[in-house]
């Protein structure tokens, strides 16, 4: 069954926390991965791959650069989840 936005956000926050140690509460929709959460490009790739596994979506390399904010990632997963 498809997850709603809040469920995706919660799942994504867990992945971000595991990779970077950023508190899950800090992973909010309007936060920038790089500017606010201090996540670099390589950690972002790890988060992307783990999100693919968790949500059953495919996030191509070329798409990753468009996922600048948490909201972008949640929306992409929401639109593409199986």
């Amino acid at each position: 069954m498809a997850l709603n936005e809040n469920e995706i956000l919660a799942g994504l926050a867990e992945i971000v926390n595991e990779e970077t140690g950023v508190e899950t509460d800090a992973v909010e929709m309007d936060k920038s991965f790089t500017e606010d959460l201090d996540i670099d490009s390589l950690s972002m790739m790890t988060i992307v791959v783990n999100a693919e596994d968790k949500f059953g979506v495919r996030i191509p390399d070329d798409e990753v650069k468009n996922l600048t904010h948490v909201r972008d990632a949640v929306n992409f997963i929401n639109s593409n989840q199986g």
Partner: protein
Amino acid sequence: MSTPKANQPALTIPPAVQHARIHGLGSYRPERVVSNAEICENIDSSDEWIQQRTGIIERRFAAPDESIIDMSEAASLQAMKQAGVTADDIDFILFATISHPYQTPAAAPLLAIRLGITSPGALDLSAACAGYCYGISMANDMVRSGSAKYVLVVGVEKLSDYVDPHDRGSAFIFADGAGAAVVGPSDFPGIGPTLYGSDGDKWDNIVQKDSWLNLREAIENPESGLTPRWPYIEMKGQSVFRWAVFSIAPIAKKTLEASGVTPDQLDAFVPHQANMRISDAMVKAMKLPEDVPVARDIATTGNTSAASVPLAMHRMLQAGDAPSGGLALQIGFGAGLAYAAQVVVMP
């Protein structure tokens, strides 16, 4: 199915040898140490940023007049000395590099002349960062099939000639150095099965910017609109990271299984020194036990492509971080994209 023609002799083939191993290992690091601060004279970056993204503190660059032949000669002499062989014993040279500055001829025959090896089989291998591990695999097969007794495998790069010092995506990664191994017959299996493969869909992830034909067009035809420029190597770091960690780490595990070795039985894990972050992520993805020593030569050597695996292993052996006679999983991966991995008994 064709069958041999009647009344002709069966072909004579050399007797096969059951096992092969690495008898000797050598390495060469250029004298000049290049700090992150020096790299940052040409790019908008910092020592802290480079260390955090790559684990590289410093790297070595060859002198302007120091060639890949010079560097590989030094590494080869060490490997031959440890193996206890002379130039007369070497039948074949497999020379892995992407920084030989001639389209043709190959570099391998030049090295043979330097080492005094008379008329060996000699050719270059173009598999970038996987080249040395491909070479070990091919040398193993040649020795075991009986087509060569001792094979000299070289991995060498002078990437400072091919990396744009102003490219913020690659200038701080690549460096220069050489490693060499002598592979020969053995009483025990010293080189396990090699798992290899490639992914041409990602051909442009690490690539020479322009082909030689584009360079010729730019020089000979000013109206083409092309700018004559040195065809530096460029890299899509994020994509390579993803491939290396999430596609290659499972290969590493399969390589252990193919050799009948469990992760806790390893005395060393020697991944290509691409980026410390890649090595760390691979270790995590493989669930490698914490007490298995991991090669971290990149910190002071940088990414030396084909040379990185023998350089890293040699340093571990010399420093006592890995035991002679112990088992190491070595894995090369990079431009192609291509990879090759095997478990070896360290010399």
